[in-house]
């Protein structure tokens, strides 16, 4: 793929009926509502422009795009003038050229003429347009008033604002408003003094700017430009690939100079992001080049020894022989593997294949265990498919949006921008969250209802909403009759109608006034298309699966499944959580969610793989660790997951790992889990390999190799090396062959192949004979399972209780700039926004404890203790404290307990009873952990070959 700029049509696409007009003698039919500018661009007539770009509504400020329209006076701007039937437009004439040159002459009279040394040289619209209009002279000279002395703002680590290069086209301001929805930028001053300002004329870094890059993307000059372009020069080729951060799955152009990545630019044709991005995907890719990356395999005899760098051959041979030895000594089921939601579908598929085919058992699990396993269970039980119902674009048709246990502006920022756009258009918002997340109140957005429930009471809350809907006669009865299991419905309706489940009855429990619950339920049921978006605040509870089913019940009862603008939509945490689940990473099911005891499915795999497969479910991660401490589980292959930091009850995880004889960790960095590893296999980044990711909307998108793996192998190749060392005889030469095997063995993926992905850009599963083009929306005419299944969701409170020793409830979450355990983002300039995890505590609770903002505090639970600094805020309710878990120093999971979801063992991260007290230093655990980590990270380089 060579470097080409994406075509810019100037104004957004319109959807009206066809209108015919003539542009420069050429007749063309375009949808009504299309601008003249866009219509012209469609017939390759590029009208000069600076303030227009097709990602933003037209603005009409630069006045370069003037045209002549027969029968109309003056020179209308083609960007703001829509086409009309029979219109005859001329885009070029001596008169227009003179006007355009006149405008350009004014621009250039206030612009530095340093094109040759400008970092945007060759990639500057002002430069291009000056050429296009034929500017040859600036008769005003340079002696007049100007902005050439403006000071650069270099506060943001990723981009620079140079006001001298600014042409005040407002594209950045409009991008911040329309695309991102943060409204951090403004035009300060009037007339000639107009200038772009961040917030109240602050530096970009200290302003409300969230560094999404939309302004940089929109800037036609180098007024806003990536620092990497300033440093490395403009790119010369680009490769379209998929972001490796959250489950939104933004498509990017990796813009390269030779082997070097210059910048990541969100791809306009990306179906999940439509050319938008966030600070992580766009800017935080520097970890791939970070000095901490381990590039050589390493082995050691015991975890207190230093690492020894070895050859790939030696490392792989060691792994294979250790696993075979353990199985000989302790039995076939004594080893297992963990697949990664950060790796590609192909890699995940291979790891589970390694376990099932090579290890001969089903001891494979994935990090989705700790995030979205309840989604799989809950939605499969109610709807019949372990996946969300809609694509992201569907939110544009929603009239009511219910966000529960999710914080999209931090966790899924690009989707949040789309959602906020819809909210600004007037859709109503209900937020169910213990914390006052940003969505509750942000510029031009205000939730109609915020139900700040006590952590752990989701099921009670949802059942109370159902109570209102059923007892007030708001059920969509026709829908239920036609689409759902009516017997199950009747049972459920009777259950929720019990006065014990009324909002009034549970008010004491949830802490939310009954009237608010009633109003929210009525709005959800009667406000038009209603869509539910949820995240880990739903799943990571003792009742995670119940909550998912309670959500599904609400959606079915109100007829909100199977059409645009509705549905039940899990926001997936990691880039490939959906894919990892799809690929058969769970110990009880093969790819495509077929149980291992399903003889037909098993036979298919047995035939393809040439071995007999275990019909019994394998161990889940927590059970593996239990078995390890019991002495029956001795070896594990962990690809791209840091279970020590990410899984609950760190001490228990550490004990499990310590009890094993061969822990193999494959990762980019020596992560926390690697402290307990015997073999370390270097991993490759998403930039270094081919494959696919599947995002939260079941969208399968290509990951493309833009550079050679620095560690020598793509992760799929490493798994193949291990498999072959164990005698499996795999022969993949490209991930496309793995996808072909996936398609062969997985009915929902039957029609997926790389050629089709390249042609279409992406595909949403199921892709098969029944849906050859994929399935953007599920359950349209009937549920996948046949009739929608209402499930009685009794509220069974967690056994984690507050009391005199632990009077507060801790809940956890993420922040925009950091990603999960932070292994990647902590190794980028994103630390500028979030250097440490802080404990949010309500002023009332802080006052009672003598805690001031910024004080070190000790956070203690039944499981453990840590210290961190306090942040006093009323975003959390009294009695609730909150922290993020991005920094290993804090070890928030030392605190979390091993209570978990009853159905899936997804850990209860969101509810821990704690006490907070003033402190003046790290806890004992933190100190000893630091010492241990330091010791276990020692590396002895390989002996130099002499």
């Amino acid at each position, binding site marked *: 793929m060579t470097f080409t700029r994406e075509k810019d049509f100037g104004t957004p696409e319109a959807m009206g009926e066809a209108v015919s007009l003539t542009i420069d003698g050429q007749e063309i039919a375009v949808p009504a509502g299309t601008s003249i500018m866009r219509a012209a661009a469609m017939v390759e007539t590029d009208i000069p422009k600076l303030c227009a770009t097709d990602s933003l509504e*037209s*603005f*009409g*400020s*630069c*006045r370069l795009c*003037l045209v002549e329209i027969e029968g109309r006076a*003056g*020179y209308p*701007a083609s*960007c*703001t*003038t*829509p086409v009309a039937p029979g219109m005859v437009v001329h885009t070029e004439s001596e008169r227009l050229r*003179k*006007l355009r040159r*006149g*405008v350009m002459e*004014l*621009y250039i*009279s*206030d612009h530095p*003429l340093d*094109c*040759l040394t400008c970092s945007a040289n060759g990639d500057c619209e002002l430069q291009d347009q000056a050429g296009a209009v034929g500017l*040859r*002279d*600036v*008769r*005003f*000279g*340079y*002696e*007049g*008033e100007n902005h050439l002395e403006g000071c650069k703002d270099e506060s943001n680590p990723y981009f620079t604002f140079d006001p001298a290069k600014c*042409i*005040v086209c*407002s594209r950045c301001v409009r991008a911040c408003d329309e695309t991102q929805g943060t409204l951090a930028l*403004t*035009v300060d*001053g*009037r*007339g*000639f*003094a*107009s200038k772009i300002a961040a917030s109240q004329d602050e530096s970009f870094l200290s302003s409300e700017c969230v560094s999404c890059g939309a302004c940089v993307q929109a800037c036609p000059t180098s007024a806003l430009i990536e620092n990497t372009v300033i440093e490395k020069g403009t790119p010369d080729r680009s490769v379209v690939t998929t972001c490796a951060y959250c489950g939104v799955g933004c498509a990017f152009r990796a813009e390269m100079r030779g082997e070097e990545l210059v910048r990541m630019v969100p791809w306009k044709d990306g179906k999940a992001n439509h050319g938008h991005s966030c600070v992580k995907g766009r800017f935080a890719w520097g970890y791939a080049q970070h000095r901490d990356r381990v590039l050589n395999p390493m082995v050691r005899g015991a975890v207190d020894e230093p690492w020894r760098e070895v050859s790939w051959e030696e490392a792989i041979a060691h792994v294979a022989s250790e696993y075979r030895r353990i199985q000989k000594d302790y039995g076939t089921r004594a080893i297992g593997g963990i697949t990664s939601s950060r790796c590609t579908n192909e890699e995940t598929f291979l790891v589970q294949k390694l376990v099932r085919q090579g290890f001969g058992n089903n001891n494979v699990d994935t990090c989705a265990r700790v995030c979205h396993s309840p989604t799989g269970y809950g939605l499969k039980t109610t709807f019949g498919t372990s996946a969300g119902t809609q694509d992201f674009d569907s939110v544009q048709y929603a009239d009511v949006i219910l966000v529960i246990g999710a914080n999209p502006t931090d966790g899924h920022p690009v989707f949040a921008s789309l959602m906020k756009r819809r909210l600004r258009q007037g859709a109503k918002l209900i937020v169910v969250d213990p914390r006052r997340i940003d969505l509750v109140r942000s510029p031009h957005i205000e939730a109609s209802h915020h139900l700040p429930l006590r952590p752990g009471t989701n099921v009670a809350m949802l059942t109370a909403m159902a109570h209102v809907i059923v007892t007030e006669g708001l059920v969509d009865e026709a829908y239920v009759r036609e689409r759902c299991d009516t017997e199950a419905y009747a049972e459920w309706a009777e259950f929720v109608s019990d006065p014990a489940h009324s909002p009034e009855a549970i008010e004491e429990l949830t802490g939310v006034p009954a009237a608010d619950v009633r109003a929210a339920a009525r709005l959800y049921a009667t406000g038009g298309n209603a869509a539910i978006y949820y995240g880990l605040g739903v799943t990571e509870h003792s009742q995670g699966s119940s909550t998912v089913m309670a959500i599904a019940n609400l959606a079915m009862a109100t007829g909100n499944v199977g059409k645009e603008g509705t549905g039940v939509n899990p926001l997936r945490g990691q880039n490939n959580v959906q894919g990892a689940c799809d690929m058969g990473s769970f110990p009880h099911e093969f790819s495509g969610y077929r149980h291992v005891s399903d003889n037909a499915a098993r036979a298919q795999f047995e035939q393809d793989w040439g071995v007999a497969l275990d019909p019994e479910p394998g161990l889940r991660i927590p059970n593996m660790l239990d078995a390890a401490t019991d002495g029956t589980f001795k070896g594990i292959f962990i690809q791209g997951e840091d279970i020590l930091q990410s899984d609950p009850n760190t001490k228990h995880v550490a004990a499990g790992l310590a009890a094993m004889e061969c822990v193999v960790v494959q990762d980019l960095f020596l992560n926390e889990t690697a402290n307990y590893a015997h073999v370390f296999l270097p991993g490759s980044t998403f930039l270094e390999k081919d494959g696919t990711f599947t995002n939260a909307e079941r969208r399968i998108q290509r990951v493309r190799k833009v550079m050679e793996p620095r560690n020598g192998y793509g992760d799929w190749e490493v798994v193949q090396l291990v498999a072959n060392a164990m005698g499996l005889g795999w022969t993949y030469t490209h991930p496309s062959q793995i996808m072909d095997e996936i398609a062969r063995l997985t009915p929902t993926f039957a029609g997926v192949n790389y050629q089709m992905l390249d042609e279409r850009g992406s595909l949403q599963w199921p892709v098969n004979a029944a849906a050859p083009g994929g399935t953007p929306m599920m359950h349209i005419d009937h549920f996948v399972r046949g009739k929608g299944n209402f499930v009685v969701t009794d509220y069974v409170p967690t056994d984690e209780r507050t009391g005199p020793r632990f009077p507060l409830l801790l809940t956890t979450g993420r922040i925009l700039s950091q990603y999960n355990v932070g292994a990647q983002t902590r190794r980028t300039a994103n630390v500028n926004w979030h250097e440490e995890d802080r404990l949010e505590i309500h002023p009332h609770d802080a006052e009672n404890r003598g805690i001031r903002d910024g004080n070190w505090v000790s956070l203690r639970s039944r499981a453990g203790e840590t210290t961190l600094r306090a942040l006093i805020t009323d975003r959390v309710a009294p009695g609730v404290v909150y922290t993020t878990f991005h920094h290993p120093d804090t070890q928030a999971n030392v605190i979390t307990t091993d209570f978990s979801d009853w159905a899936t063992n997804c850990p209860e991260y969101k509810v821990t009873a704690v006490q907070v007290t003033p402190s003046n230093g790290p806890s004992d655990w933190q100190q000893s952990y630091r010492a241990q980590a330091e010791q276990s990270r020692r590396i002895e380089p390989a002996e130099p070959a002499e």
Partner: protein
Amino acid sequence: MTRVFVSKDMASVALGADGLARAFADAGCEVVRTGSRGLFSIEPLVEVETDGARIAYGPVGPGDVAAVLDGSHPARIGAIEAHPFFASQQRFTFARCGVTDPLNLADYAANGGWKGLEAAFSLSPQEVVDAVKASGLRGRGGAGFPTGIKWQTVLDTDADEKFIVCNADEGDSGTFADRMLMEGDPYCLIEGMAIAGHAVGATHGYIYIRSEYPFAIEAMREAIARSAGKVAPFTLEVRVGAGAYVCGEETALLDSIEGRRGQVRAKPPLPAIEGLWGKPTVINNVLSLAAVPFILAEGAQAYADVGFGRSRGTMPIQIAGNVKNGGLYEVGFGVTLGELVDEIGGGTASGRPVRAVQVGGPLGAYFPPSMFHLPFDYEAFAQAGGLIGHAGITVFDDSVDMAHMARFAMEFCAVESCGKCTPCRIGSTRGVELIDRIVAKAPRESGALEAMPQIRNTKGAARTHDEEIDLLRDLCDTMKYGSLCALGGFTPYPVLSALDHFREDFGGASALPEAAE
């Protein structure tokens, strides 16, 4: 008890009307405070009710009470209607101004008030729109767009909510008709807006008044409160402008009402289709809306019968500047510029010869006496390179420096530019710099630009005076045809007209310029 009438209009008050009113009250008179009659040279004016007629005296002061009351004061005018300044007027819109107590509902009703609204209520919305169309009423704010057609668009656009917005951000220098009407006959505007509401299906209206008009704001607020029952279900509120000239531009005004930075919106979409908060909106000037009650009360034909060419009805013309009889003069279109300046205005106040008249506010063209034959008419003025605008005319005597006035226009534009479009944002500042060089007879020398090695196309030598003048004309061309709104688009009118008619003030060769486009 003797009833006397004294204006409480802001201009009259500035001339001492409050003291006069107090003096009459102290003398035991019943003082009725009215709006202004509109001729400032006779202010402070008092009218004494004598045998059912009103005898006017002016200008008079507090010390003149006794002489006025005994009829001996030399400033006796007699019946005001007979005064030459008033006798020749056709007061359709300002009929009650200066006559009634502005806030007295009974006074309003007794002087023909509400007749238009009652007539409108008896008609269908389409019939009301048809009447306004038939009257030939055009927007009095300056653009002259037919009001009925605008209303028709709003009527035809389906929406759950529509608005009537009155533009009372009267910011042109030398204009005061909006203020006089709002202070002197606020119910007339309310009635016009209520009729508009009925005609297009709007139930709420906003009056956007500039903050410099505290009396008008107060009068309108009070009048809205008092007449609420009369215009119900139509409701109204006053919004106070934030001081930017550009907020008088209709789309910037909508932004301002919505609570945003007042910036010009590109059209389309037309405000009539997507206006305030995206809803169909009638946005009209005070004088347009205030003309409507007459049209409904007296019939479209009565209005259309007056006028000239395609400019029908009357225009409240504001005569200001260096002029003897400054004030408000309402008359049918067609009166000539010369009649207005010399006969009605009475020539300059300084007594020196008239040199230039600017018509249409600070961005209107300057006309020399050689063009005084021009009839007051949208088309005639446009053809002569000018515009009627809000019908303010400002008179200058022969001491005026027209290059300085051209510079003032550019400077005004630079100060008031919202900064959105490039021709206005950068062009106005370059215009000031350029005229400064022209006036100083110091054409631009080869400078920093030419010193740049990469700049090889520019003429290396110093520029000539004529080249600078040509550049000014080019700049005016770019601004006139390239600007987004009338601020940048009209700034070239005073500049080019000064150049065309008063070239001698710009120095250099005095060759006759080519006709302006």
